């Protein structure tokens, strides 16, 4: 029975991802547009765009290597797996035993590396510059993220997303200071990770559709991750399908409000230069380090 519930939960989770992931970016742009006095696009725009691209013929550069052909599918599968691992509305989904925070961080890094390599594959300068930027931003984002993982994992006793989310949900909260610093660090890192430019230059047709879909999934991975680690209010416990409607409602509210926050941040930092992104990320590292120190200091007092 429990296995069946876990499988149903996972299936529902994946269905939610498929339904919501393409809507979120356009919702983000819509809120941004409304806040800056323009009318935004239609909410189903991204869906139409994806279908249009998937039907188009893809154009491959003559000197492209096998890596170029596999990269879009690989990126999509990797980010998709990460998205399937992060819980959204309920704990105890079928893939829950695998959902390790380090693994999720590693999967996102793997997708990033593959995308950077694919961007450099045909030897165009724009792809190369995009790869440089992506990898440099990652170099600073990684330590911040690992420090946050470390802080939360020291608190929960394990790096499993399930255990951390369950502990947060049950109210055994870390001190608010540590938590808010860690949250700030994760928001900065996530914000730097979802904006990337120049890497999809060489792709067209279905390849471009896959890479765009991977980017959408990446956005929802970050939103779900922030939700599960810091704000798991109303998330259904494992094996309790009766609590799913509440969990779904809470998840929807949480995701929408996080998207709104992201839109506001996006307006404030529109067209941010690379140097400023790295500086923001340096702040994120500092925040994450302070979060760890704060937690340890609190533990000593207690």
């Amino acid at each position: 029975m429990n296995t069946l519930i876990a499988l149903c939960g996972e299936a529902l989770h994946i269905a939610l991802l498929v339904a919501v992931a393409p809507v979120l970016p356009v919702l983000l742009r819509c809120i941004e547009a409304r806040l800056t006095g323009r009318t935004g696009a239609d909410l189903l725009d991204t869906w139409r765009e994806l279908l249009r691209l998937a039907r188009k013929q893809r154009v491959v550069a003559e000197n492209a290597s096998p890596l170029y052909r596999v990269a879009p599918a690989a990126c999509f599968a990797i980010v998709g797996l990460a998205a399937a691992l992060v819980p959204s509305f309920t704990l105890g989904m079928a893939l829950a035993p695998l959902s390790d925070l380090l693994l999720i961080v590693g999967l996102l890094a793997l997708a990033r590396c593959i995308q950077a390599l694919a961007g450099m594959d045909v030897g165009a300068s724009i792809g190369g510059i995009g790869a440089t930027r992506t990898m440099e931003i990652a170099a600073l984002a990684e330590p911040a993220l690992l420090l946050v993982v470390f802080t939360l994992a020291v608190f929960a006793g394990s790096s499993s997303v399930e255990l951390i989310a369950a502990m947060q949900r049950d109210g055994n909260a870390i001190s608010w200071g540590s938590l808010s610093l860690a949250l700030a660090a994760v928001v900065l890192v996530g914000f730097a990770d979802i904006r990337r430019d120049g890497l999809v230059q060489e792709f067209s047709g279905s390849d471009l559709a896959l890479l765009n879909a991977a980017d959408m999934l990446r956005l929802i991975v970050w939103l779900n991750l922030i939700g599960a680690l810091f704000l798991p209010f109303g998330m259904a416990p494992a094996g309790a399908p009766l609590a799913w409607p509440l969990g779904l409602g809470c998840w929807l509210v949480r995701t929408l409000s996080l998207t709104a926050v992201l839109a506001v941040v996006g307006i404030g930092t529109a067209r941010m230069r690379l140097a400023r992104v790295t500086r923001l990320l340096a702040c994120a590292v500092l925040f994450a380090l302070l979060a760890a120190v704060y937690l340890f200091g609190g533990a000593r007092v207690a």
Partner: protein
Amino acid sequence: MRLALDPLSAGLLFPFIVGVSCSIAAGFERRRLFALCVPPAATLLILLAADAGTVIVGVAVIGVTGWLGSHEHVRLQLAATCAAIGCLIAGFAIAGSDDFAALRGVQPESLRLDASAVLLLAGAGALLPWHLWRSAAADGLSALVAACAFIVSFYLATRVLFDLFGAAQLSWFGVGLLMVGAAVALSGSLRAAVVTEFDAVVLIGSVHQLGLVLVGLGLALIARAVDLPSLLALALDAAWLQFICLVLGRVLLLQCAAMVQAGAGTRRLDLLGGLIQGMPITAGGIFAALFATLALPPSLGFAGFWLLFQALLGLARASGFGLQCLLALVVGCVGLSGALAAFGAVRLCGIGLLGRPRIPRTAAAEDGPRRTTMVMVSLASLLVLLGLVPAAALWPVRSAVARMSGGSAGIVRPLLLSTGEAMPGYAPPVIAVLLLVGAGAVLWLLHRHGPSGRSEPAWSGGFAQPPAWLPFGDPATQVTARSFAEPLRRFADLRAWATLGCLRETMTQMRTLPPVIILLGVLVAVLITWLLAS
């Protein structure tokens, strides 16, 4: 001369046999048979030694083999060998015995023990191929000698710290190793991300792995000092996996680097490019080796990293405020160095293997002789397989770790790494299957239902048509090794930060972030007052 085979020596035979046989099989020449066989024989002697004298003889033989090689750092290597022998002799003399069995029973007083341990570790450290830090023209023999040196160093360090002085409390030693390891890892990957020669990137990149091994050993020492045998086993396992990555990944990468140099005729990254077209097997070997050493799932490096992180985590939960802060710093350093290693790997592959050829010679490069490529393919497959089943890589040292941690062998299940019976863990085969199924399904769907593709010349990015004598396009329109690392170079250039002008400029730019700075200042002040008050 006394010989003995205990679990630790037996475990180290695994990387020894694989590394040495692959090196010899790939670089075998009849006229160099003697030079190729002496370092492995001496290493075997050290691994099987049961007294200090045999170890020192073996170390001396490895050092002397430097004369037989043709590389340019013979003098440095001989000096290092002399220093290592001096340290080892002094260390064993201070410890009071040269027989391993006798040493295990002797409990010298604390100061003597510390001095002896420091000297012996310094001896093991001096044996590492440090000369590769400076330059890196790798030939087959120096690669073999270096692989042997890594194995001997790791063996001596674990033998001294966890077997001979296994009952001693060396916690300050562990803290020292931890800090040295983090610094070594960080400096290695930072330097590897900016050097512009193919084999230099490879060789210096392995310094990053060495740092992670040291961090693992340091964690194990601290875990022993606070009496947590399960953590000790976890940290030793982590150090072991990183060590396997270091030795095997390095052997494979050096063979590939030699092949690139023979095929393309240059080691300069800025002259390479597009090698994946002419040298697919070499390129595949480089991809496999770099993937295996990086902390990207589902690779062997990620398994080692996962265990290392769990050890850091467990130790942080069981220690005091000061050590916790140190461990947090180590986590930051390890994360930064891992990300920089990924940066270096993407740079190496993206510029050297992908893209367009930058000179005609590179376009004509081909894979080397069949024997060498066979060795490369098998070593690459071994690395990938070990990444999928890390328990197989841990199996050779299982009983040695159990003995060193006092009976607790850690939880080793064939398909899952985990920290406890009921704890969720990391299951690489499942991850790999899910990824393969996902990517395969997408590719199949596209192949079956998607529109067919067509090939066109790559877009030039808006640059003018290249002249007729540049058939692969203008190389200046591609990213170069130097320009790829430029943002990093600018960011990491500490000398520039130190100058006043730069400081002022940074301050002016930072004015754009006043809320962040104010918030940070307030937080630090609150934290300090709070810590002082409690």
